[in-house]
C-alpha cells in the first residue's frame, strides 16, 4: 500500500477517485440547489456565483445535478464490474483449474461473446427489457466478464503447476481447497487491475447509454443524460455539454491511472 502511494500514476488516479467518492457520498451537503427543482426564471444561465456550472433548459442547477449524477455513475460502475468480476473469477478458475474439455467449452463461449459487439447487444437487451438503473447494471455486468475470465484462467494455468500447489495436492487437499486457499490468493493482483480498468469502462458505457436516452431515465440526473440535454442547446449553452463530458473523462482517466499503477507494482519485471 505504501508502494502504491509512491507510484505517481496510482497516486494521481487514487486522488481523483477518492475525490469522486467523497463527492458522491456528500452529495446532499455539496449541492447548492435541489437537482430536480425547475426554475422558470433561471433558464440556461451561464456559470456564475449563484449557479456554479450554470443552469439547464428547465432552470435546474447543473452543478447540483452533476454532484448527484456522480452517485449513479459510481454505483453503476461498482455493481456492474462486481457482477462481471464474480462471473469472470468463477468461470476463469474452473477453466484454468480443470483444463481439458471444461476449459475448451468455456473458452469457446468467451470467444463467441467477444465476437458480439457488446454495446449493440446492450442496446438491444435494454430496448427489450426496458431501461432502469438495475437493468443497466446487470446487463453491463453480464456482457463484460470475458476479459476477467481469460485473465483468471491464464493465472490458474501457471499457478496450478507450482510446487506448493502440488505439495498441497499430495497432502490430500481437495480441489476447492486448492483453488481457494492456494491458487486464487496469488491471482488477486491482476484481478484488481482488471476490476479497476473495468470500472472506467462501465461508467463510460452507462454514460453512453444515458446519452442515447436508454440509460438512466430523466428526471434522475446522470452525467450521460445531462449531456443529452446539452446537445440540444449546444450552440447557446456550452456549459451543459462541457462539464459532464469533463467529469466522465476525468473519472475514466482516474481509474485507468490507478489500474496502470497497480499493474506496474504487481509486475516484478517492471520493478527497479
Amino acid at each position, binding site marked *: 500500500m505504501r508502494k502504491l502511494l509512491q507510484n505517481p500514476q496510482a497516486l494521481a488516479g487514487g486522488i481523483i477517485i477518492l475525490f469522486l467518492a467523497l463527492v458522491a457520498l456528500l452529495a446532499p451537503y455539496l449541492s447548492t440547489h435541489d437537482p430536480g427543482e425547475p426554475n422558470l426564471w433561471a433558464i440556461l444561465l451561464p456559470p456564475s456565483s449563484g449557479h456554479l456550472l450554470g443552469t439547464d433548459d428547465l432552470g435546474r442547477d447543473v452543478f447540483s445535478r452533476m454532484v448527484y449524477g456522480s452517485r449513479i455513475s459510481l454505483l453503476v460502475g461498482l455493481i456492474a464490474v462486481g457482477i462481471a468480476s464474480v462471473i469472470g473469477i468463477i468461470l476463469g478458475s474452473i477453466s484454468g483449474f480443470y483444463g481439458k474439455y471444461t476449459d475448451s467449452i468455456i473458452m469457446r463461449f468467451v470467444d463467441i461473446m467477444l465476437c458480439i459487439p457488446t454495446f449493440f447487444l446492450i442496446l438491444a437487451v435494454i430496448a427489450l427489457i426496458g431501461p432502469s438503473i438495475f437493468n443497466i447494471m446487470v446487463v453491463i455486468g453480464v456482457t463484460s466478464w470475458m476479459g476477467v475470465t481469460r485473465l483468471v484462467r491464464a493465472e490458474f494455468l501457471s499457478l496450478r503447476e*507450482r*510446487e*506448493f500447489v*502440488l*505439495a*498441497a*495436492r*499430495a*497432502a*490430500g*487437499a*481437495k480441489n476447492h*481447497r486448492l483453488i481457494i486457499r*492456494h491458487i486464487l*490468493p*496469488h491471482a488477486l493482483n491482476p484481478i484488481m487491475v482488471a476490476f479497476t480498468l473495468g470500472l472506467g469502462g462501465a461508467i463510460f458505457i452507462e454514460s453512453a447509454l444515458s446519452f442515447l436516452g436508454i440509460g438512466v431515465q430523466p428526471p434522475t440526473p446522470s452525467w450521460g443524460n445531462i449531456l443529452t440535454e446539452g446537445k440540444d442547446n449546444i450552440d447557446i449553452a456550452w456549459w451543459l455539454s462541457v462539464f459532464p463530458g469533463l467529469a466522465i473523462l476525468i473519472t475514466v482517466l482516474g481509474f485507468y491511472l490507478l489500474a496502470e499503477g497497480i499493474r506496474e507494482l504487481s509486475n516484478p519485471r517492471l520493478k527497479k
Partner: protein
Amino acid sequence: MEHSSNNLLDVLNLKKYFPVQTTFFSGSRDLVHAVDGVSFGIQPGETLGLVGESGCGKSTLARLILRLIEPDSGEIRFAREDFLGKRGEELRRLRRKIQIVFQDPQSSLNPRMKAGEIIGEPIKIHSLAPSRAARKEMVLDLFRQVGLPPDSYSRYPHEFSGGQRQRIGIARALALNPELIVADEPVSSLDVSIQAQILNLFSDLKTRKNLTYLFISHDLRVLSWISDRIAVMYLGEIVEIASTPELVKKPLHPYTQALFAAVPIPDPSTRREKILVPGEPPSPIRPPSGCRFHPRCPYAFAPCKSTPPPLKPVENNRLVACYLY
C-alpha cells in the same frame, strides 16, 4: 525376482509421454518420452537413490509415483495395493502414506501461508487432530523433530533461510506420518554445508521414524552417502540398479562409469582416467533406436543400434541394461 512381494513400493513398466505440439496446423503430435518403461521396487526401510542428468525424467517419475500426474501405462503398487486404480477417499487414504519433498523450498511453500499453517494443513485436511490446540501441539512437535525453533510458527516462508525452508518442507511431508518419502533433489538448491545438515536430518528421521526413501539427485556423492541402492536413469529408462557399495566399487554400465568419472575429487594431485562422453543427450522426442546410450557409448557394437538391451540380472542381485554383460 526383482519384484519380491514384500516390497513397499513396486513400479512396473511405467510410461509417461508428454505431447508437444510442433506447429498449429500439423495434425501429428510429437511425444516427449519422459518416462519410458521404468520398473523397480523399494523394500521397507530402504533408501533407493535415483541418479541421472537433468531432463532424464527423474522428477516426472517422482510426480508419477505421487500421482500428481497420471501415467500413460504401467503399474504402481504400494504395499501390494494397486495405487493407480484408487479414486476419491481411497486415494486420499493411500496418499497419506506417500509424501514428497521438493527441490526448491522457495517455490514449494505457499508464500502467503505461515510456517505453522503450511505444516498444519495436511493434519487439518485428514482431521488428524481433535482440536485446534492439539493441531498446534502436533505442528510444534514437528518443528522440534526437524530442528526448527518454536517461534517459527507464525513466520512466513520468506523470513527463513534456504536450509530452514527445506526443513519446513520436510516437516510438512512428515505431518501425515508417511511410510514412503519421495525426495526430489531435496538438497540441490542448498549450499554444501547446509546440504550436509539436511542429509543428516534425512538420515536421522529415517532411523527414528522407520521411513523408506526414494531419494532423487544428480549428485552421486550425495546418493553414495545416503542410499542403500542406486538406480541410474538415462533418457527415461533405468540402465542400472545396484547396491551402493557395489556400484561405487565397480560401475558396470558405460553411462554409470561416465557419471562416476565426472564426480570431482577434492584433491588436485589425484590423476585418473577420464571417461568423456561425446555429444549431448539426444532429444527425448526422438530417442535413438536400440540402446539409448549407443550414439555416445565408447563400447557400442552392432546389436546396440538395433535392439534395446533388457535390464537383466548380472552378478549378485544387480541389474544392468547393456550387451557387454
